[in-house]
């Protein structure tokens, strides 16, 4: 018995994303952002996308290309303060933005990945983030209903992968990646290193390849992945 090979080239992996798709994008700042997959999505030009990401990267990097191209209809995000283009697009009404508390975004995605319908939390209950949300009482406390987030596609950056899609992550580049890798119908991974089956010890696997659909190997680590000198 042998585990299936899911390696694919980058253009074909991204071509599977239709217009109107909801796309989870890994990363917190630069670490863990799948820049190569995003650049191919910008090149192919799919429209009307809903992106879910911790942040909006910085101007000229990552999802900023998609926002600049007008490919993004809505952005679900925790913070976009480092991207003046995204703030301008939000303020002009060109980009719809839904803000979510950071850990609640993580839990909504985890719930989506775990086949659950929603989570209950009191986070943000005294803030404007509670506006329009359903309130329930649980164990004597008021809780907000935060719906699970599941997407059509997840774009994931891993440090290491095998052809089946078993994944390992580097340092603070894991962030949302392991959660998003469970929460989409089509999970596309770019990996800095591709090792043969068996090259990752079972104990070292952080995301089982059973969640993953496509693995692409990065042949070069472009400047976008590098140190940002601010």
């Amino acid at each position, binding site marked *: 018995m042998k585990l299936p090979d899911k390696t694919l080239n980058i253009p074909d992996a991204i071509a599977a994303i239709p217009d109107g798709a909801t796309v989870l994008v890994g990363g*917190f*700042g*630069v*670490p*863990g952002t799948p820049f190569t997959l995003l650049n191919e999505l910008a090149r192919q030009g799919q429209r009307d996308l809903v992106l879910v990401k*911790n*942040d909006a990267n910085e101007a000229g990097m990552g999802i900023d290309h998609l926002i600049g191209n007008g490919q993004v209809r809505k952005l679900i*995000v*925790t*913070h*976009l*303060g*480092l991207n003046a283009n995204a*703030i301008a697009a*939000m303020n002009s009404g060109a980009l719809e*933005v839904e*803000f979510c*508390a*950071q*850990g*609640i*975004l*993580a*839990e909504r*995605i*985890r719930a989506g990945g775990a086949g659950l319908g929603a989570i209950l*939390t*009191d*986070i*943000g209950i*005294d*803030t*404007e*983030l509670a506006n329009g949300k359903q309130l329930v009482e649980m164990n004597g406390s008021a809780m907000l209903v935060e719906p699970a987030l599941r997407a059509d596609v997840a774009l994931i950056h891993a*440090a290491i992968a095998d052809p089946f899609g078993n994944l390992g*992550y*580097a*340092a*603070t*580049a*894991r*962030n*949302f*990646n*392991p*959660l998003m890798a469970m929460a989409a119908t089509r999970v596309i991974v770019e990996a800095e290193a591709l090792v043969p089956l068996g090259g990752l010890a079972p104990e070292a696997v952080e995301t089982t390849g059973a969640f993953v659909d496509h693995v692409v190997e990065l042949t070069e680590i472009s400047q976008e*992945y*590098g*140190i*940002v*000198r*601010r």
Partner: protein
Amino acid sequence: MSDARSRMVARAAQEIAPGMVVNLGIGLPTQVVNHLPADFPVCLHSENGLTGIGAMLPYDKADRNLIDAGGAYVSTVPGSAFFDSAVSFALVRSGRLDLTLLGAFEVACNGDLANWKIPGKFSPGAGGAIELAQKARRVVVMTTHCDRKGNPKLLDACTLPLTARGRVARIYTDMAVVDVTPDGFALRELAIGISVADLRAATGAPVTIPHSDIPTF
């Protein structure tokens, strides 16, 4: 940094007790680590998935995959751990975070905090601030006493959208150390050269003044 501000940072560092798990907000709060001895036993947490934050690194020594939540290039220490964003906030929400030091736009005398949004001017999203402010066991604010225009930041009631209600226990400013009590603001210490009258004039709510001598920092 002004002398008063650096003394505020040094004074706020005394908030950190041995053995704590601590999250330091972006900006002034991250600088308190410079006032802790190298062998001080504390676990610093970063929202993007790190316990055990080491020293900041210059660009030529930085690891492109190792940042803190503010985007600064940091290092690990012996015993550091990495984890995903769900685990990171599980730690925050479950009561394991002993202390957070946060910046502020406004703090009210009932402990309300506003630090994430100025409608029409600055709406970048709260990131992890709401969870930190709502769930850390102790919430301490570090801020200049007044904004850049000289308006008080310590107020009767916040005018800006709230980050959390009634959670701030203490405020360190470049003028004073002020506690939030059931009776409102209470002065604990004054910066060197600041009088009670100066403080009252720069504060947008009543401040209870102790009868005894007021320590300075």
